């Protein structure tokens, strides 16, 4: 029989330490839905999503019950809509409405892929789609959008960076009376992965199969709790403990992923080896760093702790899963992490420190609120800095930033649920306007002479 200690450990992880499967995301290719008539495209898209994902939610709920592990989100990612828009023309917002209706019909809480990949320049459909993002996100509920503006191989498209600063502000303007949801559903990427299961940045890349199941795991609470049992261990032992715990968490993800794929008759894609926090107490990445010995997240030493954590999570997870991909690493979204929220409130964590942290962990400046009067050029400057970190280090970086338009001094943005609440962080107000408005491209970096 299975060891009693192991059984109780697993149950404790789920019941007391918030172990869960963060998302089962079905990737669906829409390339075969493209038509020269936008109405035909929309109908085909709606039909295909409803056909492929008909049983996604039911199947995930069945697995949840049988294996006793919560699956928090069931989601869908689709081919970047700019590619479909390229052949149909017309108003891209029609696609957003179609996707929103399809998401509601199959019962998923978010659908990602209202996206464009413009790292080297704008192709047909790209610019129209990007300009339509504020309207699309303000009139739909479940559609998420992302734009890839740079990559290690292509460099950074500064025209797109300048445009995205304006788009983010417009998203906030349009949803200022509606909880500022617009910018919370929009991610600007450098080196965006094709198989990311996490929102808001999920899309189904062009090299992916027709339909695929990707799974994102979670479990910062489990890691923190494991570390709390070895308070006086040295850092080698800490790294080892993180690795072992990540292995166990990821095995659970692998099991759910293969089961979901088998039951739905769809190939299994990847497990994303992630530590994804929620605002719930005991589910925070910042608290892991604090458990390692920092007074508060943001203190000197934070970047080193995060680098260790991120690396150990990957090392532990890689052996637990047959295919690994997506964003893989620790997430540090400010509003979605109780420890991060506290650190931002107390002033221990500043935006510059966060930027440094993004150089050693998954993703980037995520769910950060900046003052409502922050100009589009400053937002573009933040995007350019973040993209440069990703481009030079051959990693994914992203910016999901919320200009707190209409929010008074000293107040916070309340999203509620998994999105949490967002303290407003101070931004350097010296202007990068001339740099941003030059346009052009930052050339791709040299990949040798690495010193």
């Amino acid at each position, binding site marked *: 029989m299975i060891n*009693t200690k192991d059984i109780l450990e697993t149950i404790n992880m789920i019941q007391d330490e918030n172990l869960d499967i963060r998302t089962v995301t079905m990737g669906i290719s829409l390339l075969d839905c493209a038509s020269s008539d936008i109405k035909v495209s929309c109908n085909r898209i709606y039909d295909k999503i409803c056909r492929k994902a008909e049983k996604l939610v039911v199947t995930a709920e069945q697995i949840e019950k049988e294996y*006793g592990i919560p699956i928090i989100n069931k989601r869908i990612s689709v081919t970047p809509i700019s590619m479909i828009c390229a052949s149909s023309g017309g108003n891209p917002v029609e696609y957003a409405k179609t996707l929103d209706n399809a998401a509601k019909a199959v019962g998923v809480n978010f659908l990602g892929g209202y996206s464009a990949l413009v790292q080297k320049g704008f192709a047909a459909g790209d610019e129209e789609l990007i300009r339509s993002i504020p309207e699309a996100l303000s009139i739909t509920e479940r559609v998420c959008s992302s734009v890839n503006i740079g990559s290690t191989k292509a460099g950074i498209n500064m025209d797109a960076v300048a445009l995205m600063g304006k788009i983010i502000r417009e998203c906030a303007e349009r949803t200022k009376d509606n909880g500022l949801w617009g910018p919370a559903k929009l991610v600007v990427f450098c080196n965006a992965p094709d198989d990311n299961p996490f929102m808001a940045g999920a899309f189904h890349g062009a090299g992916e199969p027709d339909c695929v199941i990707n799974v994102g795991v979670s479990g910062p609470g489990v890691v923190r709790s494991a570390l709390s049992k070895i308070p006086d261990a040295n850092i080698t032992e800490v790294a080892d403990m993180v690795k072992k715990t990540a292995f166990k968490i990821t095995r659970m993800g692998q099991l759910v992923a293969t089961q979901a794929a088998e039951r739905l008759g769809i190939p299994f894609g990847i497990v994303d080896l992630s530590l994804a926090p929620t605002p719930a107490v005991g589910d925070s990445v910042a608290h892991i760093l604090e458990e390692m010995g920092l007074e508060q997240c943001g203190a000197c030493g934070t970047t080193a702790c995060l680098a260790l954590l991120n690396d150990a999570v990957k090392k532990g997870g890689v052996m637990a899963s047959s295919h690994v991909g997506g964003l893989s690493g620790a997430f540090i979204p400010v509003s979605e992490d109780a420890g991060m929220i506290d650190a931002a409130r107390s002033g221990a964590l500043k935006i510059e420190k966060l930027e440094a942290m993004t150089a050693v962990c998954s993703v980037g400046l995520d769910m950060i609120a900046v003052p409502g009067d922050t100009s589009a050029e400053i937002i573009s400057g933040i995007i350019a800095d973040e993209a440069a970190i990703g481009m030079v280090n051959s990693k994914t970086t992203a910016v999901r930033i919320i200009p707190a338009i209409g929010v008074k001094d000293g107040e916070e943005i309340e999203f509620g649920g998994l999105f949490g609440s967002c303290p407003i962080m101070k931004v350097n107000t010296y202007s990068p306007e001339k740099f941003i408005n030059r346009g052009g491209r930052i050339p791709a970096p040299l990949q040798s002479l690495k010193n």
Partner: protein
Amino acid sequence: MRAVITVVGKDMVGILAKVSALCSECNVNVIEVSQSILQDMFCMIMLVDMSKINTEFASFSDRLTAEGDRMNLVIHVMHEDVFNTMHHI
């Protein structure tokens, strides 16, 4: 399919009887039982065979959970594979 039933809570008369009666009602065969009492806490782990279950897995699990709530116990039913994959390579 085999599953693991865990029961944790305050010790009292009839826990094992209640849980195994429910198993028998649903045609679930008990393969192995281990139980221990630490101070006042009762902890029982049952390995069961569900291949001939006469109801849905979900309804069996719901009935056990409800029975647990009534008796002030926490009862989980989980597929055996969860523990095998997590703790064995």
